[in-house]
């Protein structure tokens, strides 16, 4: 287990996306597929890009922090359990939530906070990758940016769901992930251009 490759990070991220997306589909009887895809696609794409790049280069050694993957899985499970508990409470009559507002708000905030925690830990965990063959400074800067943007996007998403009316949170929350992905892409592009100059 200590020889977990960096590309294996794609697995917990993908599982998190699938679990959370599936949970939202369960909770929301009128799911908007495009919404779900737009919400999780940037995260999945980022993971896939990273995994592909590192697999292709076949470098950067191993990731010894198996605990990180386990924590991600535990977080995804927590989202699932809380979601199911909210559904059960509603079905059992313990929760008066005819418009499903409380459920959606709680799930949005939980998802945001979980992604924030994930982003917070990301640079620390990725630093254990051996950087003998790639550019250490560039990799380090990229890991830092990915961590910051993920954490801030998670915080923004949780904040939106905790503070705004549900209809507005739904609309604004929709744009948090694509905005974060665009911001990160632009940052990487500018950095690459600056390094090349």
């Amino acid at each position, binding site marked *: 287990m200590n020889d977990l490759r960096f590309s294996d990070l794609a697995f917990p991220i993908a599982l998190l996306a699938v679990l959370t997306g599936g949970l939202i589909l369960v909770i929301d009887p009128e799911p908007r597929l495009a919404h779900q895809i737009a919400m999780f696609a940037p995260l999945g794409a980022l993971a896939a890009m990273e995994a592909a790049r590192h697999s292709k280069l076949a470098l950067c050694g191993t990731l010894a922090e198996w605990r990180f993957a386990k924590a991600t899985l535990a977080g995804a499970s927590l989202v699932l359990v809380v979601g199911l508990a909210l559904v059960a409470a509603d079905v059992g009559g313990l929760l008066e939530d005819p418009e499903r507002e409380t459920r959606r708000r709680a799930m949005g905030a939980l998802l945001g906070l979980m992604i924030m925690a994930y*982003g*917070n*830990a*990301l*640079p*620390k965990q990725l*630093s*254990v990758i*051996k*950087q003998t063959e790639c550019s*250490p*400074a560039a990799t*380090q800067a990229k890991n*830092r940016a990915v*961590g*910051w943007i993920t*954490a801030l996007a998670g915080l923004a998403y949780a904040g939106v769901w905790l503070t705004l009316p549900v209809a507005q949170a739904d609309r604004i929350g929709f744009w948090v992930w694509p905005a974060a992905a665009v911001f990160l892409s632009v940052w990487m592009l500018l950095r690459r251009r600056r390094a090349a100059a």
Partner: protein
Amino acid sequence: MNLVFKALSDPTRRRVLQLLQREPMTAGELAEQFTVSKPTMSAHFAVLREAGLVEAEKVGKTVTYRIKMSVLEDALLGFASAVGLELSDQTERTVPPSGFRKKET
């Protein structure tokens, strides 16, 4: 978290972290940036390693240090640097209370 605050409370250690944020550096390269002695620098590195803020990799006789900070620790470093937080060990600067006399030998 106490170890992190202790590590961030010293301006030299903060400067080391800021240098490492740019790129990984060897112990020698880092020591060149400061006027303090090598044993003092080693002590600073030890505090940073103990707090889990840096990671050391030894190749031959060269020790390369690399930053290992979470987003929160990164933000704390920025905050501490901005406000000039300095909570150096009391033991280093403790002034003997008035009336205290050293034993004469």
